[in-house]
């Protein structure tokens, strides 16, 4: 197995914020009593007058960012995924998404890899919440370098953006030419393959790449797609891959009920339907444990992807 370099998405976010702060005086950043953990604190050190800590008051933070944006600022609001989505859904909807204001919501500590804090802190529904919101753009970077590119692209983009990051140090897998020009709404093909397509997002992209290596041993040639923008979804790339490979597996650190996989499923049934299987959390809350234990228990390992791929191949009679 490839030895991955591990890096932290939050650090990349902090770095991007500081660069943005230097480039643009209209950038403001909002925190909710977690500025150290989510790395907005780094921005605060450089630009104290443009950083606002709203305390444990996420609703106020989001609507205030709408006010900033209405007054011409580009506002970044960041805290844990669990507190910056469901806790403030109505604020995002009414204050930000409906009037299409220039607010970037950066959620850290998404998913079960949060670990010890347990279910109450493990957000596995945010992609559903943000996807169903009209006018919202949803990005899940695959690693730290892509995080930085995504944050810069989001700042450039006019309108509401949601970016989902994890807590842990994760493999750097986007250090390839295909991923260098981050474009919102464009999936990148991380590996060509003819027999099946593995679509990963976030932390699962690296696992899809590993799964593809594993499948090679079984003479299955897997294409791997990094679906870094969940909305708008790159349907063209998806449909093309479905046509070329005839089967699909999706993998996400999210409730499969309504996540990236379900978006892919919809694209397929309405356009070019091929058998598919979704890897993800099967509609249950998480719990305390180490990242690795939880990924194993909740079905998010390389083996789970490989098994799903075999399953799809079998359904196709291969």
């Amino acid at each position, binding site marked *: 197995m490839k030895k991955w370099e591990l890096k932290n998405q939050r650090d990349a976010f902090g770095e991007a914020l500081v660069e943005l702060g230097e480039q643009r005086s209209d950038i403001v950043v909002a925190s909710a009593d977690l500025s150290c953990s989510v790395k907005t604190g780094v921005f605060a050190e450089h630009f104290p007058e443009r950083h606002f800590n709203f305390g444990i008051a996420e609703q*106020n933070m989001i609507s205030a960012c709408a006010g900033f*944006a209405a*007054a011409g600022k580009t*506002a970044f609001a960041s805290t844990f995924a669990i507190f910056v989505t469901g806790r403030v859904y109505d604020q995002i909807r009414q204050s930000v998404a409906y009037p299409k204001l220039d607010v970037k919501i950066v959620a850290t500590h998404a998913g079960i890899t949060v670990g010890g804090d347990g279910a109450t802190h493990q957000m596995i529904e945010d992609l559903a919440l943000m996807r169903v919101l009209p006018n919202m753009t949803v990005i899940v970077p695959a690693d730290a370098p892509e995080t930085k590119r995504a944050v810069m692209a989001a700042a450039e983009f006019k309108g509401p953006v949601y970016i989902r990051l994890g807590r842990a140090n994760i493999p750097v897998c986007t250090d390839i030419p295909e991923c260098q020009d981050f474009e919102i709404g464009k999936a990148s093909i991380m590996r060509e393959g003819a027999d099946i397509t593995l679509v990963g997002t976030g932390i699962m992209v690296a696992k899809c790449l590993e799964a593809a290596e594993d499948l090679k041993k079984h003479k299955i040639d897997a294409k791997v797609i990094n679906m870094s923008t969940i909305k708008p979804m790159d349907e063209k790339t998806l449909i093309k891959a479905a046509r070329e490979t005839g089967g699909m597996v999706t993998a996400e650190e999210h409730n499969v009920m309504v996540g990236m996989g379900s978006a892919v499923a919809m694209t397929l049934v309405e356009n070019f339907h091929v058998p598919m299987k979704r890897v993800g959390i099967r509609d249950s809350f998480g719990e305390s444990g180490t990242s690795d234990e939880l990924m194993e228990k909740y079905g998010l390992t390389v083996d789970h992807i490989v098994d799903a791929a075999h399953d799809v191949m079998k359904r196709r009679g291969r």
Partner: protein
Amino acid sequence: MKIFPSLISKEYEVRVYSPLHIGAGIVVNSYPDEDIKMLEEMAGKVRRHIIEMIYGAGSGHPGGSLSATDVLVALYFMEMNHKADDPKWEDRDRFVLSKGHAAPTLYACLAESGYFPVDELKTIRKIGSRLQGHPDMRKTPGVEASTGSEGQGLSMGIGMALAAKLDRKKYRTYVMLGDGENNCGQIWEAAMSASQFKIDNLVAIIDRNKLQLDGPTEKIMSLEPLGDKWKAFGWNVIEIEGHNFREILAAFKKAKETKGHPSVIIANTIKGKGVSFMEGAVGFHGKSPSKDEYEKAMKELGGD
């Protein structure tokens, strides 16, 4: 835009209760009666527009629209700097109607100010109209914030007021809240933070009409002592009679003089103000008048 510029530098007299101020209590000033009368006439016009709009649409919120009228007229025709022919003028004062269901009042003020033809008012709530059931900043010229889900406007105002400070701009931000809206936790999150950030270019106005949707505020979810609540959250509290232009204008002045703290104006009003059978009537919170009621209301408001 000052519709009645003659008023600007005049003195007026009013009692203001402002706990954070030493020596607060009485502000002595006076406005010429004839200028106040002009504001009152505009208020009458706005009230007639409100009834016509809601009657025409067949739905809407007359009670809270009528109670908020005088404060909005004072803001749009006297207090705020704004330009109908340049709605995005950078230095304009901002107004956020947090109690978005009073949209008719806001639309009437904007139309009478010249943001769009008065004739367009009758399209409210109709399909394709720029005048949505609740304020939409993307559709209506002059609307500064999209509201309707109560509790969010004060936070938006905080963002605007902080942006003004960052940009070293002089504009002020006004936010109107419903009294029932004070139930919403987000209001208190906002209240706490405005004081923390010392946002003295922000004024909240509470339309204290003593009714919320299901009944009297003191019966449904008691707010008193309301002034004490805001004071304990670090605000400069000014309490006035909200249908008296002298008191309204005095309160704005008092707020402007207050440095280091945000100001809240508790405007004691009457829900349904101006239409006898709507005054204090919980049933007219969100109901359009019948034909008879419409005609009676218009007559009472001096319409023809």
